[in-house]
């Protein structure tokens, strides 16, 4: 042999077939990764094993066909165990590759490790396959090219893993990107293979004898074609299976999410949703529906998704027969899947409560059953009924109020309500006045005057209807007297209360005017006023007329007493007559004072007054009487008492009356104590005696005009019953109060209290 290197050549058809198989295997790998990733548990393992087998077998086939495409001038046989080992290497490396790319995440290190293992596997498969060759030639491996082929295998694996991982979610069954990737990967695998092939040179052996290997077989061209066909068929089946699975899986996924959507809608719908069979028995109902239709959630023994059998419902006493009948009747009445006109049903719960619901139904064809929707109307109906009831009540009230005019207006004053009382009072009927402005019922000049006054106070113009509602529009209630004009033009005095009306959101909605006819009250007031005036005038006149002759009697008797020529007996008589005249004059004076205080004619003339000094001055006047009676009198606090603003003349009278009473109604040798003190912004003046006291019964009426307690007649009969009345009038008109504390037979305390006004230093 001159040239040891054997001539070799490639069968181009076989080469093309091998490349096709490589592309097919790559495509299968891309497709399978997605299926494996989508599958769970055992299914995932099955997909992994099946996929790895198909893919590994594809790569292996490509390899063998590539080898079979290589023709040597010698007979080539193959060692079967090594062929099998190479197939296993291909399958294992495919499995590793598929496992790596089907994981949720692909880290760089994982990708690299996967690529190394896969590349090494492919390389191993390749060189084990070559080692399986049995031929009468020596083969020499170029280590550089071998290394290159392994590196190519690893790089191809890395690219393949990355591509596969990124393309695994490609939803379409056939995408051009996937196909392109598969072509790149297939060509790359083929390139690795043919690089590997190029690493070997075969030379004729020295002994030129092939050891006979009993486990080796020869593969014919037909065999190679067979391997290729099987590989392609297997890959095609794999890809088709994947395709079908993908479709089913997508459908299942769609179905599942649709079911989930339906569940969410069903469970969380704010209206009741149920399914019922064509007899009206409810098969399934959501929680809202259970509440609305009275199947309480606690009474759903099988849970919401479990159909509630009619007998279960009946046993639980929740569905009344009438209700089921009604539902069945409505369902049977349904002809098409068009929703029926919603209808209302009502039913009574077991606990006796009553509820109402609005139900709409639609029939579904397969299965033949019915879908229903229910809205709770119980609250709505109750509110509706309440509204109607309160409206009726209000109308009845408005109707029944015939003595009071009730007029409601909008915010502009246009009348919206005009009740029977208003009709009676003003002579309009509601129809003709509603819509007109409430200001037209008033005397214009009165509104104008009041508006001007308000304008001065508020600093802005107020006129027309606004005058009436000025206070009410600021949230206040105002009642004042106005004059209404009746339809016939006559006038009517009313007391009118105005309040603002608010709508349910709290916005100003209008005004309510409530008017009382005060004609009668005004007339009575006028009469009373004139009667009081007449009485007061009469008393003033009468007292004047009485005082003049009394003064005459008094003076003439005084002159008579002075006449020295009169004997002792007649002089004494004249003296008594004079005293009687004096008493009569005092009575007339008291009457006159009372009358004037009552009529308000006697105006107080308050001055800063020292009650201590005033008391001492009065005591000075009555000292004679006190000494005659042998009373012991003490006075406390007179020096510390602050000045009070009272009418000194009238208070002199008050103190005199109180001291005189104590002196008069205390048996000789009594003890009288006057005390003055200051407390909490007021001044307290009191007089205590240990006299006859005042009966409990009499105490309440003590300060009434002309009242005299029963027990005073034992002491003297000359009192007028006006003294304490005058005391009360004066004290009360000075802003104070007077009272007494007494036990009959024990003594009496009279007290009056006066507010201590802040003294004006100017």
């Amino acid at each position, binding site marked *: 042999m001159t040239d040891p290197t054997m001539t070799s050549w490639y069968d181009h058809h076989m080469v093309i077939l091998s490349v096709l198989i490589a592309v097919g295997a790559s495509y299968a790998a891309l497709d399978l990764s997605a299926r494996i990733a989508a599958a769970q548990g055992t299914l995932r393992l099955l997909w992994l094993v099946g996929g790895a087998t198909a893919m590994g077998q594809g790569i292996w086939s490509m390899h063998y066909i590539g080898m079979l495409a290589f023709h040597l001038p010698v007979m080539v046989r193959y060692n079967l165990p090594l062929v099998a080992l190479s197939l296993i290497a291909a399958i294992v490396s495919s499995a590793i590759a598929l496992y790596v790319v089907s994981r949720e995440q692909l880290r760089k290190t994982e990708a690299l490790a996967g690529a190394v293992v896969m590349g090494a596997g492919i390389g191993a498969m390749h060189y084990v396959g070559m080692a399986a060759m049995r031929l009468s030639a020596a083969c020499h491996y170029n280590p550089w090219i071998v290394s290159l082929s392994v590196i190519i295998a690893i790089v191809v694996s890395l690219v393949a893993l990355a591509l596969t991982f990124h393309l695994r979610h490609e939803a379409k069954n056939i995408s051009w990107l996937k196909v392109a990737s598969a072509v790149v990967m297939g060509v790359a695998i083929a390139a690795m293979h043919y690089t590997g092939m190029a690493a070997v040179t075969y030379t004729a052996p020295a002994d030129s004898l092939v050891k006979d290997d009993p486990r080796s077989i020869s593969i014919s061209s037909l065999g190679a074609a067979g391997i290729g066909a099987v590989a392609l068929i297997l890959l095609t089946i794999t890809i088709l299976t994947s395709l079908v699975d993908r479709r089913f899986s997508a459908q299942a996924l769609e179905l599942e999410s649709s079911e989930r959507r339906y569940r969410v809608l069903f469970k969380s719908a704010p209206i009741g949703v149920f399914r019922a069979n064509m007899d009206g028995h409810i098969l399934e109902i959501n929680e809202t529906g259970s509440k609305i239709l009275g199947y309480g959630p606690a009474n759903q023994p099988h849970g919401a998704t479990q159909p509630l059998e009619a007998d279960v419902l009946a046993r639980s006493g929740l569905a009344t027969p009438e209700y089921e009948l009604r539902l069945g009747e409505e369902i049977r009445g349904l002809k098409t899947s068009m929703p029926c006109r919603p209808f209302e049903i009502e039913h009574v719960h077991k606990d006796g409560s009553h509820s109402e619901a609005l139900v709409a139904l639609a029939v579904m064809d397969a299965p033949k059953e019915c879908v229903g929707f229910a809205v709770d109307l119980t609250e709505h109906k109750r509110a509706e009924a309440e509204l109607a009831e309160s409206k009726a009540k209000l109308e009845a009230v408005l109707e029944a109020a015939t003595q009071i005019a009730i007029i409601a207006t909008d915010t502009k004053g246009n009348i919206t309500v005009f009740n029977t009382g208003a009709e009676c009072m003003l002579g309009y009927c509601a129809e003709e006045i509603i819509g007109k402005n409430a200001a037209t019922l008033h005397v214009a000049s009165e509104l104008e005057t009041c508006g001007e006054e308000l304008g001065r106070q508020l600093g802005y113009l107020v006129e027309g209807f606004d005058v009436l509602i000025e206070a009410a529009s600021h949230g206040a209630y105002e009642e004042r007297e106005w004059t209404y004009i009746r339809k016939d033009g006559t006038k009517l005095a009313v007391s009118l209360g105005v309040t603002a009306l608010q709508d349910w959101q709290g916005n100003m909605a209008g005004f309510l005017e409530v008017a009382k006819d005060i004609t009668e009250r005004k007339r009575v007031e006028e009469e009373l006023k004139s009667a009081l005036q007449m009485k007061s005038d009469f008393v*003033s006149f009468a*007292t*004047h007329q009485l*005082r*003049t*002759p*009394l*003064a*005459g*009697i*008094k*003076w*003439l008797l*005084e*002159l008579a007493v002075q006449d020295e020529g009169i004997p002792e007996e007649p002089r004494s008589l004249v003296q008594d007559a004079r005293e009687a005249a004096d008493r009569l*004059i005092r009575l*007339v*004076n008291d009457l*006159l004072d009372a009358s004037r205080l009552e009529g308000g*004619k*006697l*105006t107080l003339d308050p001055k800063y007054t020292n009650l201590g000094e005033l008391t001492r001055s009065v005591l000075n006047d009555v000292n004679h009487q006190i000494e005659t009676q042998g009373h012991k009198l003490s006075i406390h606090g007179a020096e510390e008492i602050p000045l009070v603003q009272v009418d000194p003349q009238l208070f002199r009278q008050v103190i005199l009356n109180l001291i005189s009473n104590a002196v008069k109604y205390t048996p000789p040798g009594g003890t009288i104590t006057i005390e003055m003190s200051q407390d909490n912004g007021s001044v307290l003046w009191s007089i205590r005696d240990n006299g006859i006291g005042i009966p409990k019964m009499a105490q309440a009426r003590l300060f009434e005009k002309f009242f005299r307690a029963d027990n005073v007649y034992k002491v003297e009969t000359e009192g007028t019953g006006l003294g304490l009345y005058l005391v009360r009038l004066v004290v009360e008109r000075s802003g104070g109060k007077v009272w007494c504390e007494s036990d009959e037979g024990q003594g009496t305390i009279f007290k009056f209290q006066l507010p201590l006004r802040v003294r004006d230093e100017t």
Partner: protein
Amino acid sequence: MKPNGKRILLAEDDRFLRRACENCLSKRGYTVVLATDGQEALESIRAQPPDLILLDLLMPKVTGIEVLRALKADEATRTIPVLILTNSSRESDVKEILELGADGYQIKANLSLVELGSRVEQLLGV
């Protein structure tokens, strides 16, 4: 001649009061000139001005207030002291009287003749 010779005009329409008053003052030595209504009083005063005028308020023809006003409006009579003797205690009257320049004001029923005597003495400066 009476001891002090002072002339007092007494204008009073009630005859009992007039008598009692005249009696009392005469005993004290005054010359008492009587008038029964306001007009008479004014005429008397203008004819011969007295040293003191005791004036009732409610009198026929011309009231005491009008007399007082006329007296105070006249240079010749405005300095004569005037003591109002009345039984009316209307506040408006009291106020007006004092504003017009009366020298005093007494409720007759509440006044004794002894007190009247002292008041007259005081006003005449005797």
